[in-house]
């Protein structure tokens, strides 16, 4: 064994092969290059960057202690926010379900409807809720309607896409057996598809409702109702302590929403 050890000594070992090292080096190099370019090219006034921690601290101290005087207005606005989220989630269901049906490859009547369904879902998902809100505020004026429509238009894509995937993943065999009994298409869907996607449906809607509560809090910043209107107003008037209260209220709402949705999820599934 000692002779073998003598033969084996001097053999090199590296963690990465030559090829791998080259690859890693290239990646690091390009990333570094991109970082340097981004930092140099970006439109930032660098003295402000070093000043940033002080500024942030400054803002923080101006928000302390939180001012509770406007609490009833805040409460009303929070309620409005919850209504926006809830109404739009409920209304979205009626639109998202048929769209998900035609956007699922195994249930869509023909290629054109598949394309239309997918197009609707993709456009809905790619435009952020706030941008939808901007659009609807421009059309219908500031207010709750713009907010509800904005959340609806965004939620259709979310619910529709996930439901479409749930539909595509069903077991084909119950569908086949329902067809064999001579049932019409609608009855086949009712007995063969609906029972299979029910659990997914509840989970998806509950999840989206939770997300929508969060989204609804910021709609007011572009005028579409909810607590965001109060928030924007307080910021514009530099009422930082009220801002702090509003932020606390928002955290409270989000936590409440999460608690509620996880409880609902346990009950339903």
């Amino acid at each position, binding site marked *: 064994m000692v002779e073998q050890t003598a033969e084996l000594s001097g053999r090199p070992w590296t963690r990465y092969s030559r090829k791998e090292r080259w690859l890693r080096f290239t990646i690091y190099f390009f990333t570094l290059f*991109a970082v340097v370019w981004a930092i140099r090219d970006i439109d*930032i*006034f660098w003295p402000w960057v070093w000043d940033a921690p002080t500024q942030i601290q400054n803002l923080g101290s101006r928000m302390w202690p939180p001012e509770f005087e406007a609490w009833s207005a805040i409460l009303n606005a929070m309620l409005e926010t919850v209504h926006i989220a809830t109404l739009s989630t409920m209304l979205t269901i009626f639109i998202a379900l048929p769209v998900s049906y035609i956007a699922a490859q195994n249930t869509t009547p023909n290629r054109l409807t598949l394309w239309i369904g997918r197009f609707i879902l993709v456009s809905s998902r*790619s435009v952020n809720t706030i941008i939808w809100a901007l659009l609807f505020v421009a*059309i219908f004026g500031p*207010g709750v*309607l713009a907010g509800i429509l904005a959340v609806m238009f965004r939620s259709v894509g979310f619910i529709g896409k996930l439901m479409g995937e749930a539909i595509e993943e069903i077991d084909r065999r119950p569908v086949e057996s329902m067809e064999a009994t001579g049932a019409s298409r609608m009855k086949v869907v009712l007995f063969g598809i609906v029972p299979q996607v029910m659990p997914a449906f509840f989970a998806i809607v509950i999840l989206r409702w939770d997300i929508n509560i969060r989204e609804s809090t*910021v709609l007011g910043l572009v005028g579409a109702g909810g607590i965001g209107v109060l928030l924007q107003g307080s910021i514009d008037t530099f009422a930082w302590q009220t801002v702090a209260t509003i932020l606390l209220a928002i955290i409270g709402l989000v936590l409440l929403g999460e608690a509620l949705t996880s409880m609902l999820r346990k009950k339903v599934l």
Partner: protein
Amino acid sequence: MSEARSGSGPLAGQTWRKPPFIASPWLRYGLLIAVGVYFYWTFNTLPFNWERIAEGLPRAARIFGGAFPPSFERSDLMWTGFKESFQIAFLATLLGVFLSIPIALMAAKNLAPLPIYLLGRGIIILSRSFHPVIVAILFVAAVGFGPLAGILTLTLYSIGFVAKLLAEKVEEIDWGQMEAMRAAGAGFFKTLIYAVFPQILPRQIGLSMYQLDSNLRASAVVGIVGAGGIGSTLMNAFGRYDYDFAFAILILIVGVILVSEGISGWVRKKIW
């Protein structure tokens, strides 16, 4: 024997109803009534400015008329705005992912002592609770308009997502590997490098790509409140009623999101 054919026998005439999804009839009808009442009540109490809404459809017609065809004339503005969005997203992802690693280690119950664990978890919860737009407004108020606020916002946003997932991963690691390193006499940091990182970092690349994609979408939005990027360009166009330009920007945003989604999906497939 026609036993199987006839409907007679001991069970004939027995009625049957489908066992309802919600067993208690009170709860069932109560829920239905509650939903109906809810709709009625909210529609009545929520402030709808019906006059303004009625103006909506003709307005919509005007806006869509003005928006079509989309105007790509000021493409240099669009290019600058988009470039800035990309820079914001890129730097924020890098910074966010980089910071997520120590924060995730802090927020892992199996690694960190209790006070540090609470601190780590607190940072993550704080980062997640607020919509990035709100965070953006606060940073704009603190450090001024421009991409700096955007980078800070999205860094926090990234931490909220990446650190949370990493922390969960850390809590699920195979403890045996840690033990082995400790038994060999390695200190805390060396143990980290040899036992923890190899278990959590492989997923990191996929996560980072996903977060880059996420940040690119979000950067379009935080710009709306002044944190830089294509969102600011969009807001300006909207404010000046340049709907055809706004439409062009919107198309660009949607296009970029789709491309980015495609690329990140492809990269993640390659890495898995």
